[in-house]
């Protein structure tokens, strides 16, 4: 006989309450308009790029690391992919080249963080700043004049990503695959064990270097996938491509109450909840007429502060009602073990 009492995931509950709360607030503020303009496809369309990039980021955050390079990575790999496709004159080659470039940048991050033990924050911030400069250079008129053949207009199979019958199934498939890999494979377990305690993972025999390599690789690869969706929607590259993607993804991760320290509490549904919270927020602000970048960023900041307090309060509450073994339980269990 075994007593089984599943522990409720308080952080998941917090993020649900938060999402519902924000939804209700906007429902009142917009006089019911929020609900009429509100649909799942609407939310997905407005946040598909963050969600896909966030899926890859989950592996990195599960290890308690950071990958701030995803926005820049998305930008540069799209530029590399589309430029080569233009030069070669074969539209579909943009897809594999973009993905390969994104994966490559992710793997380089993985080598720097895993083998050379550079803090992930530093490595990826360096990419963020360095690559952003390159993106702006390649997207200026000077550059276009020098290399006119590299001017690209989204065409061919990439445009299929705009079609609902490709977009949504692919989106769902990506979520399912990442969910399986993160929760139900050895690799996913290893990622999360590193976030819990890297030293313990190492002492058990988890191949830290390889796990880090591939976690950052996946983060990069998913930024590349997100990039393909970006190309399909925007029709090509521009000098703000991928800008602030990492900020948006991290905001969604916070809103989903995923701990930055990583570990076993890193769960994919929390990311989706966080993304939905922000989508509702943006949708509501738009309906109320606050459509400027300023309003958006201010509200994001406020929401994150709100989340912080919510998480702290919920943690307090959790520790008060935590199921600890009482002396009586222990005696009872001992008796059972003896008999």
């Amino acid at each position, binding site marked *: 006989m*075994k007593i089984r009492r599943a522990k409720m995931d308080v952080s998941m509950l917090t993020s649900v309450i938060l999402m519902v709360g924000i939804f209700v607030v906007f429902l009142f503020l917009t006089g019911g308009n929020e609900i009429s303009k509100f649909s799942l496809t609407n939310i997905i369309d407005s946040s598909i790029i963050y969600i896909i990039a966030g899926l890859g980021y989950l592996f990195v955050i599960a290890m308690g690391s950071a990958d701030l390079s995803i926005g820049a990575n998305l930008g540069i790999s799209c530029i590399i992919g589309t430029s080569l496709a233009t030069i070669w004159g074969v539209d579909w080659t943009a897809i594999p080249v973009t993905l390969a470039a994104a994966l490559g940048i992710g793997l380089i991050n993985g080598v720097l963080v895993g083998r050379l033990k550079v803090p992930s924050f530093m490595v990826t911030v360096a990419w963020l700043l360095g690559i952003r400069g390159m993106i702006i250079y390649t997207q200026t008129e000077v550059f276009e004049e020098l290399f006119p053949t590299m001017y690209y207009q989204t065409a061919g199979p990439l445009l299929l990503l705009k079609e609902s019958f490709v977009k949504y199934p692919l989106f769902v498939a990506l979520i399912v695959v990442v969910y399986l890999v993160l929760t139900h494979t050895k690799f996913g377990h*290893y990622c999360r064990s590193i976030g819990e305690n890297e030293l313990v993972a190492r002492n*058990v*025999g*988890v191949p830290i270097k390889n796990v880090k390599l591939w976690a950052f690789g996946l983060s990069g690869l998913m930024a590349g996938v997100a990039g393909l969706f970006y190309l399909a929607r925007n029709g090509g590259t521009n000098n703000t491509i991928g800008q602030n993607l990492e900020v948006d993804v991290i905001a969604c991760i916070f809103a989903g109450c995923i701990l930055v320290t990583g*570990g076993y509490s890193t769960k994919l549904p929390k990311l989706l909840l966080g993304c939905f919270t922000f989508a509702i927020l943006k949708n509501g602000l738009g309906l109320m007429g606050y459509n400027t970048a300023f309003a958006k960023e201010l509200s994001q900041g406020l929401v994150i502060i709100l989340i912080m307090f919510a998480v702290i309060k919920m943690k307090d509450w959790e520790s008060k009602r935590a199921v600890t073994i009482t*002396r009586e*339980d222990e005696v009872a*269990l001992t008796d059972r073990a003896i008999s």
Partner: protein
Amino acid sequence: MAGEIILKTEKLCKTFGPTKANIDVDFELRRGEVHGLVGENGSGKSTLLSQIAGIIGSDSGRIELQGEVYEPHSPLDAYDHGIGIVVQELGVIGNVPAGVNVFIGRTQRFTKFGIVNTTKINEEVREIAKEWDLGDLPLNKLAGAMNVESRKQVELLRALAVDPEILILDEITQALSYDNRRRLYAIIEKFKAMGRSILMISHDLEEIMATCDRLTVLRDGRVVDTVETSAISMNDLKRMMVGREMEGEYYRVDNEPSRRESIALSVENLSVTDEVKDMSFDIYDGEIVGFCGLSGSGIHTIGKALYGLSDEAKGKVRLRKNEALIDSSQKALHEGMAYVPKERDWEGLMMQANIRDNITLPGLDDLKSKAGFVWNGALNKTANKAVSEFSVKCNSIAQEMGGLSGGNKQKVNLGRWIAKDLSCLVLDCPTRGVDVGAKAYIYNLLKSLKADGLGMILISDELMEVLGMADRIFVVKDGEIARELKRGDEFTEDNIIEVML
């Protein structure tokens, strides 16, 4: 005046939620005595010390210090009353140098215009260390960068810096190696000779019996009895602690070395910087090989290096089953080796993760389905099986690891490996900080693993444990095997100590 009562508690109670940690505890500490508190994990020893030390309050009852009511509201308050404390809860502050840690909270004396004079602090700390013969410590080093042993020494210095009338020591020897234990015992002797009192907790009953004058036994938060050490036998003491007869012997009863013909692990010319020097030895199947040595001898480094955890290791560690060369912990795991590290709470287990994930982490390879997925069903099954097999006391496998007692944590730490098909097991202080019941359990487990033909390496700071369990002992000095002893007449504490020092 020796014998006079210096501290007493009357009907002290403390509850944590539904848990009654202390129930009507009456306790007396005399001047000039070493008084031991013994009991299983969760019996309320640490709670009592924490109440006296001002770390936690009491729900009812009172404490008297030298005949006056004493209600400390913080450890600093306790210091002011002449009570020096070394307890698990306090620890050191990692980002502060060791020297400053000694006077933490009491630096006013060294402060001028808001600036703390660390040179002066360090001078004074050195003087205290010299007075009590505590050896040299790197006082400018951040306490967080020191190993557990040095940190405990810093805590001990902090307690002694108060010039206390009463010294409280909670599980301090567990963290100390042999030579520093000797130093501690000398301090205890000196303290006693000065007519001051010591109140200590230890799971090492041999130590308690040897050191203390009187013992107070606690069980389930109540005082069972207070007895003179000289008037009680070890078995009676165990019975009082557990509340029932402890069966049979703790350690092995046979007095002959035994092993199988086949070699489990060969080590050739193993070196790790200057900590381990050119070591070669073989471990046979069904054999327990003990490693003993002082703090700087490198015995713990050997354990790490064998499991492929040391980047600086040179030489060959080979598992003979598949002739596999162990050059990384990944390889060691894959080849069926197991390593139980010394610091269970931060090297061995993920304290915030649940029991299930802790148990299954080393065995994920075996739990994979054909398609390569690890399903929760398989994880739950394995974890539930291990929990019941090793009688880990917990509500469910979804419980957080940190909520378990020391003994149960160690059962998880060890038990998760046993489920696997092992080829060699490396244990570093496997009974550190666990109570008698769990200790007996672990020793029995080692005995049955030995009978099953598993080769084991037992690294330990407790000589009795190694003498009780091993077939051979390597006494290590300055990174070299100074002497090899075989189970039998050679197996005496004196033989080890003679070589070790």
